[in-house]
């Protein structure tokens, strides 16, 4: 369908429809951004949409000066995302590689072992007790080790590797390379789209997770994560859903309000994703497409 033929009413409808979609998607973010950059007492008057009326950085200043848990939370979130993604991707890729080698004697058995876990899981309590018994409670490793392998990711990578020509391995083997070298130097570089996709999935999962903090490191300030802190603040806000009026009175006396602080933290938690994801977009769309077609 190259070239622009006659523009129909349907085309116009589509454009309008998708403009609305963009508005509905973006407005909440811009709104929260505006509120976070707006003076708290002024915000109470309402009527702010996507442009701050009385610009201020006070909300952010307040966060970074009073909330002592936040810098640590941010650091932990970054650490677990980077370490968790690196280890997770490598683990899934190595396992996927072994399962993609058709001559591997345990290929079928390990594959079945893997797929089974997608349907039956131990459940919250047994997993909780296991983590406890392994001594991972209140330790940073609890963010990394229990989530190392995801059957789905392994299968996506494996499907891609299955599609690579056998000749690659054969010629390398004739040159005397062992499987690990082949994996590292030949196969892995060719899998970049899928690797990037899986890395993105894992990274987003790591960045956004807070439930493991809640279960295993709830009262440990040195292990808190950004989303967990944000969640706690949101919870406080929910509890006072019926106390809006008393909040108003208090707000007038402070330069920041719980609401405006909440907005600022939301933006802080969102910005890293916003920065990273447009760049990886082309990777995961290709990767996902290939994965979908092959699966």
């Amino acid at each position, binding site marked *: 369908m190259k070239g622009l033929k006659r523009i129909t009413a349907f085309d116009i409808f589509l454009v309008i429809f998708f403009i609305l979609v963009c508005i509905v998607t973006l407005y909440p973010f811009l709104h*929260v951004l505006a509120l976070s950059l707006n003076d708290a007492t002024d915000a109470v008057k309402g009527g702010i949409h996507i442009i701050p009326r009385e610009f201020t950085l006070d909300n952010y200043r307040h966060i970074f000066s009073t909330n002592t848990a936040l810098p640590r939370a941010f650091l932990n979130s970054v650490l677990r995302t980077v370490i968790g993604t690196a280890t997770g991707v490598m683990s899934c890729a190595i396992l996927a590689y072994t399962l993609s080698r058709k001559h591997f004697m345990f290929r079928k058995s390990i594959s079945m072992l893997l797929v089974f876990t997608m349907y039956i899981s131990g459940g919250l309590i047994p997993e909780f007790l296991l983590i406890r018994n392994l001594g991972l409670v209140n330790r940073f490793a609890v963010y990394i080790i229990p989530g190392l392998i995801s059957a789905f990711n392994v299968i996506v990578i494996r499907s891609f590797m299955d599609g690579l020509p056998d000749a690659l391995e054969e010629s390398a083997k004739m040159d005397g390379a062992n499987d690990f070298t082949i994996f590292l130097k030949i196969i892995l570089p060719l899998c970049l789209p899928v690797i990037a996709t899986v890395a993105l999935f894992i990274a987003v999962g790591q960045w956004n997770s807070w439930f493991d903090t809640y279960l295993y490191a709830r009262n440990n300030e040195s292990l808190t994560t950004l989303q967990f802190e*944000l969640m706690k603040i949101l919870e406080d806000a*929910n509890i006072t859903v019926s106390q809006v009026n008393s909040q108003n009175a208090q707000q007038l006396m402070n330069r920041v309000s719980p609401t405006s602080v909440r907005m600022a933290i939301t933006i802080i938690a969102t910005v890293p994703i916003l920065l990273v994801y447009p760049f990886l977009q082309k990777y995961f769309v290709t990767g996902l497409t290939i994965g979908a077609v092959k699966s």
Partner: protein
Amino acid sequence: MEEVSQLKNMSLNEEFRALKKGKSKWKQIKEQKVLIMMAFPFVIWLIIFRYLPILGWTMAFQDYKPQNGFFEQEWVGFDHFIELFQDQMFHQALRNTLGMGFLGLIFGFLASITFALLINELRFKKFKRFTQTVSYLPHFVSWVIVANLVTTMLATDGAVNQLLVFLGILDDPVHFMAQPRMFWGIVTAAEVWKSTGWGAIIYLAAMAGIDPGLYEAAQVDGANRLQRIIHVTLPGIRPTIIVLLIMSIGNVINIGFERQMLLGNNIVANQALVIERYALDYGIGLFRFSYGTAVGIFRSMISIILIFIANGFAKKIGEGRIM
């Protein structure tokens, strides 16, 4: 001698398979030791972190006390399950879980498929790419953030209320988050907002695989745009839809409690209680590990049953598909 000349014509893999039959296991292990060493740590990982917990299912049939060893536990058979099925709160949780699960499923599918169909028809390339990029964004943000956004938008002085009052649909602002009857709808709407763009990707990938010749043929037959969508595009992505539907139906009962917990509050607590939350509150929360495990087992069982039903249903439709 014949064997050797046969071997010369086979590829490496076939050679291995042929030789394997005559080889002892130990020789094989020695040959594949690098592969085995690569896979070994992760198999151990699987056993520890995925299979050991399944052994924990036995706890559901005991009166588990952490201080006793495994053999010192008292066995209570199905008592916990019986107690579970008689608990009103559990029935509420089950109703909520399935209700919100299926609502999310139905509207999610409708939204993603419609979105994919419409985006596929959009002809302005740059705008199309921009819209797609924007539409993925909610998927990447956490539910904590989404809940925050939703709460802000639905507040009495929030954008939704302002819009509805402005349009004359409402006279006074409504406190949406405090209306029990609206909770299911709010959760579903939030899910649709969050996952439609992302969910459409798979359908778009499938659409890219449809033979353009089919569209041309339809056009020649006089089909207009809508008809082409209904008779070419939709059937073209039918297999994808069905596979995803089966996988999703199996997961309906597995919706965690994250979104309900974040979007809920004391006023809508009854509508927000889902099975996972129930297990957390009445299981871990009360240190009733056995009871909580029983809930988890129930969930897995329902999930498997749902998958089988969905799969069987799809097979029936699938057979009719062969034309």
